[in-house]
């Protein structure tokens, strides 16, 4: 019974794989991720280097550091890719055929997540890697004081972190897409969760809200990446806790999507 269910899931994932690569939007989103990561990393890195030079310091930084910041912007290319994997089926009506082929709704959702998450992870590592190369090529020259370094272990960790962010936000987008069905609604909801919510909470100024803001997905990821709080100069909170929050948000989005999928007519 169990082996059979896994076989069914494998077939459903195979179909999703074929579907993912047979539409142009996937390629556009991936190209967008690469360009967006490289360009924003270059901007962030350039600003960082200029600032360091102006301060007269010789504090070096790894080429992957601006890439981590850049990923905060570039992640939306993957949000779009993942979202389209499900919302385009609702807009075209193809979801009915998908559910005719894979009538167990949780299995359909799992198949989409299983295909999109690794693709997003790879996209994060690869576009992050490309951005590191671009940042190093441009900023390691004398003009910027040769402040940018290439420490292998740190760069590897940062790239894996970017991959993890892309993978998890893409799964969040799939869950939200299943719950909301429309592309505009899904994109707005995910954007608000990632960017709007922590900002709004922080704006209230209340200590509780501030603490809560730090537990929303993006700050949680920054905690996972070991980002430091500018005021206290120490990590926001332990990396493990960041990962736990990130996973909890992802699980919540998938659970919401699954609940709507099961409850509503297709």
């Amino acid at each position, binding site marked *: 019974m169990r082996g059979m269910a896994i076989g069914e899931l494998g*077939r459903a994932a195979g179909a999703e*794989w*074929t*579907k993912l690569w047979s*539409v142009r939007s996937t390629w556009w989103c991936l190209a967008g991720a690469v360009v967006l990561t490289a360009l924003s990393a270059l901007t962030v890195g350039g600003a960082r280097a200029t600032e360091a030079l102006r301060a007269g310091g010789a504090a070096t930084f790894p080429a992957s550091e601006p890439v981590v910041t850049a990923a905060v912007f570039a992640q939306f290319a993957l949000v779009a890719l993942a979202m389209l994997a499900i919302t385009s089926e609702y807009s*075209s009506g193809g979801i009915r*055929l998908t559910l*005719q082929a894979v*009538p167990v709704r949780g299995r359909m959702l799992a198949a989409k997540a299983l295909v999109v998450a690794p693709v997003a992870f790879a996209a994060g590592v690869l576009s992050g890697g490309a951005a590191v190369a671009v940042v190093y090529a441009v900023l390691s020259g004398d003009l910027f004081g040769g402040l940018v370094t290439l420490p292998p272990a740190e760069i590897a960790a940062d790239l894996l972190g970017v991959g993890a962010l892309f993978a998890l936000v893409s799964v969040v987008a799939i869950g939200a897409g299943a719950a909301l069905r429309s592309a505009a609604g899904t994109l707005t909801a995910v954007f608000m969760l990632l960017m709007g919510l922590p900002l709004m909470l922080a704006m209230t100024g209340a200590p509780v809200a501030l603490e809560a803001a730090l537990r929303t997905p993006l700050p949680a990821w920054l905690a996972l990446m070991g980002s430091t709080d500018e005021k206290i100069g120490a990590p926001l909170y332990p990396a493990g806790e960041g990962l736990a929050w990130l996973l909890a948000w992802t699980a919540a989005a998938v659970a919401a999507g699954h609940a709507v999928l099961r409850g509503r007519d297709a």
Partner: protein
Amino acid sequence: MDDLSLDVKPGAVTGFLGPNGAGKSTTMRMILGLDRPTAGTALIKGVPYHEIRRPLRTVGALLDARAVHPGRSCRAHLLALARSNGIAKSRVEEVLETVGLAEAAHRRAGALSLGMSQRLGIAGALLGDPEVVMFDEPVNGLDPDGVRWVRHLMRSLADQGRTVFVSSHLMSEMQLTADHLVVIGRGRLIMDAPLAEVIARSSLTAVVVRSPHAGDFSARLASAGIRAERSGENELVATGAAIERVGDLAYEAGIRLHGLSTRQASLEQAYAELTADSTEYGARREGARNGDR
């Protein structure tokens, strides 16, 4: 849908008729587990749809031909369907050939005409070589050649022993294709009978009698409990009796006949009588012809 019970048999084409909004598409979606009935079940070979292991191999359905990602090629669309149910890749080329889309396999679904979309939808339904085939308005948008092709296809699928369940609002087409009819109106079952019976039961199916003694014969028929109406000086129309019985009565009464023939109601006429009370939008929007969705 309200308390609809029906049983669709293999080896025949069952036409599913009803006015717009009667619930034809909803019924099909319920059978496929896409919409959930508030009460009751839809079973295929005794099992709910979602419990079928590789459902496309048991049930092939075309609900909405346009419901395909417009940017995906015909081949990729079918390939994804095939993979989901463990259907051999070679089947994709086969069904593309069957529906006449082999040349257009690389074309994006959004660039197809409605008729070609219908063919792609039918290809998807046939992909798993299913025992049960359901088509919702399959001839919408097809040219006369395409219509004939769908008719022959449904016939041959039924002749192979498959269950063919097809909805349509084209009565003339159904009259040519269906063996059995299920008629619903406002979500209720109006008729579930063989095509021949539906037509025979219509008041417009009648025996036309030409006789110089039409008046006398009309009275004679009435006394035998057969409704007869004068339709001309020497002609009357008898309903509710077989032609043999009308002829025998004339012979017994010694009435000279100049003509005795049957008049068959068309399915369109029979259907109009059946659904006269249940056309949801008919009365208010007379003449409006909307495709059923």
